[in-house]
């Protein structure tokens, strides 16, 4: 008999995901990219071995998709000032030179993969526009920090 996907299971999986994985990531950008990375680039399905082991593959996929959408909407619709702060926090949490990360992000635009597949077109466009602006602001701040005069 096929297992039925219930709302309670998905909520429990989301709680588990939040407590065991997401709570250890300090920035919203970090959480968003972590959730986006659990999605298969070809099929768009979400996979998380630990979560699937504790619940089921289907429940885990649904929980990840919902958490991803929620994290994305929460970040994309934030005031630009907070958005820049979140990006700065993420860039400084990665063990690499900030200017190197900014250069790669501006060139390759890897943040595009952070958009959930079912997000509306305009919110997705706002997110991309905000990342470009935020990168320019963080780059200016980094340049002022490195070359004060």
């Amino acid at each position, binding site marked *: 008999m096929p297992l039925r996907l219930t709302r309670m299971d998905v909520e429990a999986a989301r709680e588990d995901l939040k407590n065991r994985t997401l709570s250890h990531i300090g920035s919203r950008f970090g959480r968003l990219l972590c959730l986006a990375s659990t999605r298969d680039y070809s099929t768009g399905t979400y996979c998380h071995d630990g979560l699937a082991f504790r619940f089921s593959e289907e429940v885990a996929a649904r929980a990840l998709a919902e958490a991803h959408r929620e994290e994305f*909407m929460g970040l994309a*619709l934030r005031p630009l*000032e907070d958005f820049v702060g979140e990006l700065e926090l993420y860039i400084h949490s990665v063990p690499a030179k900030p200017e190197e990360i900014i250069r790669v992000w501006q060139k390759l635009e890897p943040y595009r993969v952070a958009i959930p597949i079912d997000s509306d077109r*305009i919110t997705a466009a*706002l997110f991309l*526009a905000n990342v470009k602006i935020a990168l320019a602001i963080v780059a*200016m701040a980094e340049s002022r920090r490195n070359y004060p005069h």
Partner: protein
Amino acid sequence: MSAALPFLVLGLLLIVLLILSAVWRHRFTATRYESFQDDRFFAIRHAEPLPPALAARLFGPEDREFIAKQGCASLKRLFCRQRKELGLCWLRSVRANADRLMRIHNRAAGKNFGLEPLLELKILAEYFAIHAICQILALAICVRGPNNLSRMVAYAGGLSDQLHEGIKQLLPAELAAENGSSQVYLKSGRTRS
């Protein structure tokens, strides 16, 4: 008795006609949207209102003030260009949603004999009001960007929601419930943050 017979027959005939009319009206109302299986999906998926926070973010003053504080002309230009495009995109989406809803409604109304003229007029007035406001907003955005338009945008968004709700009310009960639950699910995933 024989003099009253024609009146009795006429009365019975009228009762039968009234019953038939009621049954027909019920049948047409029930099937009003049933023949539009694809449109039903279309209505659920595409005529969904955009997140209210999106309009506030695009047309509000907060982000613009933050950019002005940075004191960088090229950044300001980039921001203005982006927000202008996004503002126009938002308007296009609101207009497209209204058009889709009206198309579905018109096709359904064409097969329905139990139309309520006042409700139809209200829907038509809301549809034209959305288009008129969108035209004014598009002109304002093209001339001076999406600045200080929050109130007018909120009004257009409110009208769009009203149109959506008005047309949804005409759905048969069981379909409305299905439509409603799908929307709640879609919305809950998006706005729970």
